[in-house]
């Protein structure tokens, strides 16, 4: 479910980025094709959206002349379409031509019209490092056509606009502006912790745990947050670098369970001696969760380290922001309400939410998450 949501959000961002959402169906949109390219080792995965209006004009798909194109009419010509697509996108890696595989076709209704979605892989002989792309699609029919492409390389996006005059694009995969790169991953780290309610709640749980007899135990909080940080850094590094990668269906429920545990323990105060060890243990799970955001296995060592360092610093900044926002609120609440009431009420809420997350993630069905 979470994956679907993420995919949906990525699509929204891409569509907004290209300005085609939420365009209502305007026929006077020019001829544009949208292409999402993703580097995966020695493969270039291609998802190509082509307006059916263009295909209908070029291939005269409407064989029976009823001004409607049926799926069958498209399938009858799909071999020619496939052939044209593969000839229209030439991919070279280190000057060696890569081989496009046959496409799978689907249909998608975007707000700017109906599109054929062609999914295929272009396979290169070696891991992709230096890409030369040539796009020749539709220009011989309509020189004002544009190929609006987005090449994804891990978290980095390279927007490309192919025109009749600019059909070639050379890309050094992995080469990028260091400052921008560091900032990008730093921001990703901050966003990741702030957008993930589970991580925020865990940190809030640690703050509540350090509240004793109406006073905030700063030393205790510092120790707990440090243990959590060291732990999640360790597993983040190991997992993101590809040494250790347990599946999300195990890690995600454990993260939810860790919040249940901290919340219940805040109410019962039944475990006090091994609290730091447990926080460290839970931090290990959270680190594995963070690493799911990164895909850096293929990066060279230097960039791997830079990515991890930037992302980690981002996570720490996010954590400090959560603490910085929660502690003043807590002090304010303490002037009106007894600390035990705050701890019990907040922890009960946290326990409730995280229990639902646990059930959802462990048994893969939706209660509150959509």
């Amino acid at each position, binding site marked *: 479910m979470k994956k679907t949501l993420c995919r*949906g959000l990525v*699509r*929204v961002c891409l*569509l907004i980025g*290209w*300005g*085609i*959402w*939420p*365009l*209502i*169906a*305007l*026929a*006077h*949109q*020019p*001829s*544009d094709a949208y292409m999402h390219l993703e580097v995966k080792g020695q493969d270039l995965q291609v998802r190509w959206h082509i307006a*059916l*209006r*263009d295909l*209908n*004009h*070029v291939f*005269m*798909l*409407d064989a029976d002349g009823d*001004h*409607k*194109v*049926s*799926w*069958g009419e*498209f*399938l009858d010509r799909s071999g020619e379409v496939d052939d044209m697509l593969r000839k229209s996108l030439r991919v070279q890696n280190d000057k060696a031509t890569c081989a496009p595989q046959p496409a799978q076709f*689907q*249909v*998608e*209704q*975007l*707000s700017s019209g*109906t599109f054929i*979605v062609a999914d295929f892989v272009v396979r290169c002989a070696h891991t992709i490092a230096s890409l030369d792309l040539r796009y020749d699609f539709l220009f*011989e*029919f*309509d*020189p*004002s*056509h*544009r190929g*609006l492409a987005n090449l994804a390389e891990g978290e980095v996006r390279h927007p490309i*606009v192919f*025109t009749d005059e600019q059909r070639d694009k050379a890309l050094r995969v992995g080469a990028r502006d260091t400052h921008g790169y560091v900032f990008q991953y730093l921001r990703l780290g901050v966003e990741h912790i702030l957008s993930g309610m589970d991580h925020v709640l865990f940190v809030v749980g640690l703050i509540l745990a350090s509240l004793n007899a109406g006073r905030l135990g700063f030393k205790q909080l510092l120790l707990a947050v440090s243990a959590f940080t060291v732990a999640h850094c360790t597993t983040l590094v190991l997992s993101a670098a590809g040494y250790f990668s347990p599946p999300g269906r195990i890690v995600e429920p454990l993260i939810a369970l860790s919040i249940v545990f901290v919340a219940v323990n805040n109410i019962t105060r039944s475990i006090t001696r091994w609290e730091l060890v447990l926080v460290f243990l839970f931090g290990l799970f959270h680190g594995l969760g963070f690493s799911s955001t990164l895909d850096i296995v293929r990066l060279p060592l230097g960039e791997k380290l830079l990515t991890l360092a930037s992302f980690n610093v981002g996570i720490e900044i996010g954590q400090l922001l959560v603490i910085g926002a929660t502690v003043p609120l807590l002090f304010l609440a303490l002037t009106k309400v007894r600390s035990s009431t705050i701890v019990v009420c907040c922890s009960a809420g946290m326990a409730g939410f995280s229990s639902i997350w646990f059930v959802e993630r462990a048994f893969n069905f939706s209660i509150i998450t959509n």
Partner: protein
Amino acid sequence: MKQVALVLACVLSVGSIACAFAEPYLPKSRSDVIYEAKAEWDAALVRPGPGSQNPDEAAATAARFVSQGERSDDPRFYGYARAALKPWKDDPSPPRKVLEQRVRIAQSLHDFDAALADIQRMLHKQPNDVNALLSASLIHQDAGRFDTAKATCDRVALSSHAHWTLCAADLSSVTGGADEAYALLEQNVAQLRDLRTQAWASGLLAQIADRRGSRELAIANFERSLQLAPDAVPLRKSYLNFLYENRHAVRMNALLTNATEDGPYFFHVCLLKKLQGAAGTSRCLDALTKKYQHAANRGDKPHYFEEIVVALDFSNDPAHAFELALQNWNVNKKPSDAVLLAKASVATKNKDVLLSLSSWKRETKLEDTRLDRLLSKP
């Protein structure tokens, strides 16, 4: 009303988001219809792409695509027309019929420099070509090169007095002779044999009447021009712009009865909604804004007129309107461009630009009551 609009906005937002989250799908059966073509636009479609090497045939194909482009407002057809003429793309001296279509395409795409270059080639081969001279005169006039426009227009008189009155009156009407221009054109309009040229002349009369502040006369002339050429998209757009300017929603509504959201009049449908305060205005604004952003992403030229009106009247962004109006003014000097710049300058309280517009108006002797009202604002 507000609640209805709110509910509608919510439904549309949810719909849009649902659409963005929609996944590609495999149709269930071969008979599933996945696309419905616009019959009236696609019925006569010939397959685009590299075609005949024969210039007459290629020019005829290009002409058909350009006509489809004008009727549908779909820029694809201009692309198809360009593809049909590809063998002569870089030919400095192509056959005459190819040149004619190249000029038509360039004008449709607002590439006036390219159009003018090809017109010069046409005139080089046939110095008294009336249509080429009229087009050149109009391009020079719209760019504010009035002396060149007059010299070009005077050459028309050598071939056709009736056609000369078109460009002479048009030019005179923006350089201090509006009354005489109107009288001259009115006397000669009946002598024009071609109905479309008569419609053009009536459209000119309407614009002159509008600038002179005679709304009723402008409406009568616009109506006559539409009777003569009911399918002339630029004329109808010009009339709709006039009606919007004069808050004439009833007549706009009548003209847009059959207009669809995917046709050439979407912008004017939005203007009408704005005038009527109808639901869907914000959806219009959203769609238009995205359309302009999309055009910018593609590297297309801005739709200056539309974008300035949208920035001023819809999105309340006078600074953006002023920026666009100034860019537009650097290349286009039609009275309507001056009015747009004046509106944007009034909205942004830019007195310097208003002063320079006043001085330009004095120099050119342009008579325009709309501009007078804007420039006289304190």
